[in-house]
């Protein structure tokens, strides 16, 4: 057992720190957290692109890729260090969909041509991706999805609707699940596609989130032609690929730990400033937050270590997600409690404390235990695929 990072990993973490301290636009530095940078915010778009480009220049968006595709073949532990630090510094420029999900999808299942077309732009931070999974009638029951892909000549023609598609209105590409065999059992008739969001027939309608921004969208597909070459992983093979990607996606929620670490520091400073640092309840509450952050962080790195060992992670991935998201909600609440009456102010109220970011995180946090697999589903996955309990 060894809980230390290697010299190389420590150096990397340090390199990240120095970079962010220098490069983060000053008005975004304090206090910043993931989701704080609302992607629909026009004035952030430019900074987002610029930062993505800088991250890409340093090879940080392709860390664990094979060398032939411009990666460093770094470990998942290294990737998690990146996520840990990037989120601590606000998450600007890091396209979780593209870097965290589509890149592994391409590396493991993509054809040479698909890799050639899509990996370099992801690595350079030039492209955003959205995930075309959920539908109005297919949320937790994803495999009952109805969006249809019909083979026609050199294309598939896609018809249907996706819902809760994060940042579809800003995405260049979409990785999408559609039904290619409606007669097969539902898990066996799904295929995975890469869809150009500029294709004719795609309509995106952003939804208004309760936190006051627009991130989630409806996406309508009306006879959208997708070249056959954009099928990834084989006809009707989409579900198995999805399962392993979902396991990985769960582990990526460890990003909330980076946010939590930053917020804890802000709250400690805030408590001292407001003379609340000697209040035993405040001390216990912040200490509990510090404890949970450490446990969630350790579970995250454990999962990365297992991924590096090529051990399947259905149980461990779910644990990561549950811990990182549910406890993040608690941490946001700790912040709100510290703010007291100030917590009810809108983010942009002149009297809002800590730039209104705590309120923002608090409201956003209601989505954390729903997106990427609800807590309830995660526990079922952990119990059945992880612990071997019989299915209902």
């Amino acid at each position, binding site marked *: 057992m060894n809980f230390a990072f290697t010299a190389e990993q420590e150096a990397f973490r340090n390199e990240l720190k120095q970079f962010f301290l220098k490069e983060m636009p000053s008005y975004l530095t304090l206090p910043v957290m993931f989701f704080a940078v609302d992607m629909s915010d026009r004035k952030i778009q430019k900074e987002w692109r610029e930062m993505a480009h800088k991250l890409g220049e340093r090879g940080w968006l392709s860390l664990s890729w094979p060398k032939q595709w411009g990666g460093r073949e770094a470990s998942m532990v290294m990737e998690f260090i990146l996520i840990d630090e990037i989120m601590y510094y606000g998450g600007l420029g890091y396209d979780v969909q593209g870097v965290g999900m589509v890149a592994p999808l391409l590396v493991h299942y993509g054809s040479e041509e698909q890799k050639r077309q899509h990996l370099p732009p992801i690595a350079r931070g030039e492209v955003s991706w959205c995930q075309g999974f959920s539908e109005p009638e297919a949320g937790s029951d994803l495999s009952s999805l109805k969006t249809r892909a019909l083979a026609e000549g050199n294309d598939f023609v896609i018809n249907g609707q996706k819902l809760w598609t994060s940042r579809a209105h800003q995405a260049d590409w979409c990785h999408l699940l559609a039904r290619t065999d409606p007669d097969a059992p539902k898990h066996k008739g799904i295929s995975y596609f890469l869809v150009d969001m500029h294709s004719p027939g795609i309509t995106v309608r952003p939804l208004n989130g309760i936190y006051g921004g627009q991130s989630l969208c409806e996406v309508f597909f009306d006879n959208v032609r997708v070249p056959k070459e954009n099928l990834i992983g084989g006809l009707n093979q989409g579900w198995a690929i999805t399962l392993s990607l979902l396991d990985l996606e769960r582990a990526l929620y460890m990003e909330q730990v980076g946010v939590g670490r930053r917020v804890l520091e802000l709250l400690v400073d805030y*408590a001292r400033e407001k003379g609340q640092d000697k209040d035993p309840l405040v001390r216990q509450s912040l200490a509990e937050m510090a404890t949970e952050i450490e446990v969630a962080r350790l579970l995250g790195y454990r999962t990365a270590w297992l991924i590096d060992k090529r051990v399947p992670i259905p149980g461990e991935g779910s644990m990561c997600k549950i811990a990182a998201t549910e406890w993040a909600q608690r941490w946001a609440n700790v912040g709100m409690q510290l703010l007291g009456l100030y917590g009810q102010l809108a983010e942009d109220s002149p009297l809002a404390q800590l730039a209104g970011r705590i309120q923002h995180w608090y409201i956003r946090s209601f989505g954390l235990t729903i997106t990427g697999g609800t807590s309830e589903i995660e526990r079922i996955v*952990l*119990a059945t695929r992880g612990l071997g309990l019989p299915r209902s």
Partner: protein
Amino acid sequence: MDFALSEEQEMLRKSARDFLTEKCPKALVTKMEGEEKGYPPELWQEMASLGWLGLVFPPKYGGSGMSFLDLAVLLEEMGRACLPGPFFSTVVLGGLPLLDIGSEQQKHTFLPRIASGELIFSLASTEASARYDAASIMAEARADNAHFTLSGSKLFVTDAHIADYMLVAARTGESTKPEDGITIFVVDAKSPGLTCTLLKTIAGDKLCQVDFDRVKVARENILGRLNQGWREVERIVQRAAVAKCCEVVGAAQQVLEMTLDYAKTRVQFGRPIGSFQLVQQYCANMALDVDGIRFITYKAAWMLSEGMSCAQEVAVAKAWTADAYRRIIALSHAVHGAIGFTMDRDLQFYTRRAKAAEVSFGDASFHREIIAHEIGLG
């Protein structure tokens, strides 16, 4: 980072598990709860022969020269088996402090005899106030010519009634700061004026009240430095807190496994209860807590083993483990239903021991206060 045990540690773990499965069945645990001594001497000698008692002592003191992390593996298996007896007291509360701050003379006098199974040790630090702060040390040791006269009363002293020696924390000097003026003594348990009274506990483990009525202690029996013992007491408690968590790692894992077995086999409404969603949720919650306990504890144990400064990590481990194990026990009872409520099933061993583990060496609130200080709240 490496979250797996080394090959040697795996071997130690496996051999410990095999040994304890055979030699420490639950029937023995029950029997020891009912007996005053609380441990079988034959088993104690077998553990000594296996090198367990001197595991972390250097070979020149009769030990195997292994690390605290290796000891953690052993403690995990002992927790899993609910091993009764004075191993924890003797090794963690007696042997390790002697190794840390004992004089060469003291180390040569005591450590080999601990390793051989001849001596049992304990630590008498907490008093009736039931707190782990310096101000709570009120037992006094007054200096006379060549010796000290020790008077006072200690409470919740594990295995005092069978101990050959006790490390006793007493006040030897006056000061404005309660942390100053405390000294640790190595006291012969057979000293005139020393009486042990066994307390009745939920877990059937052996805790005592120890009264010191003008007990004479020779000057050379000071452990460490006169009036500067508090730092050492804190370190002993800190290490003991992690060691206790190590026991809980094993116990919690066993509780989870028992619960999963039950959920897979118990049938109601025509199907195993593990197929019901609420039961699945409970088991999932337990599993998350078990893994949390395991890794946060091993991290602290590793840091202690490596001699790293780890006040926050130790506190985090104990604070987390205390609350998490309580949750695990509660959920296990929920899944077991009425059958878990009887003495003929194994869950009760763990339930009754869980509270002792939770409150010993600082409960969650105590350690959160340490964390609050460490994160900058003053």
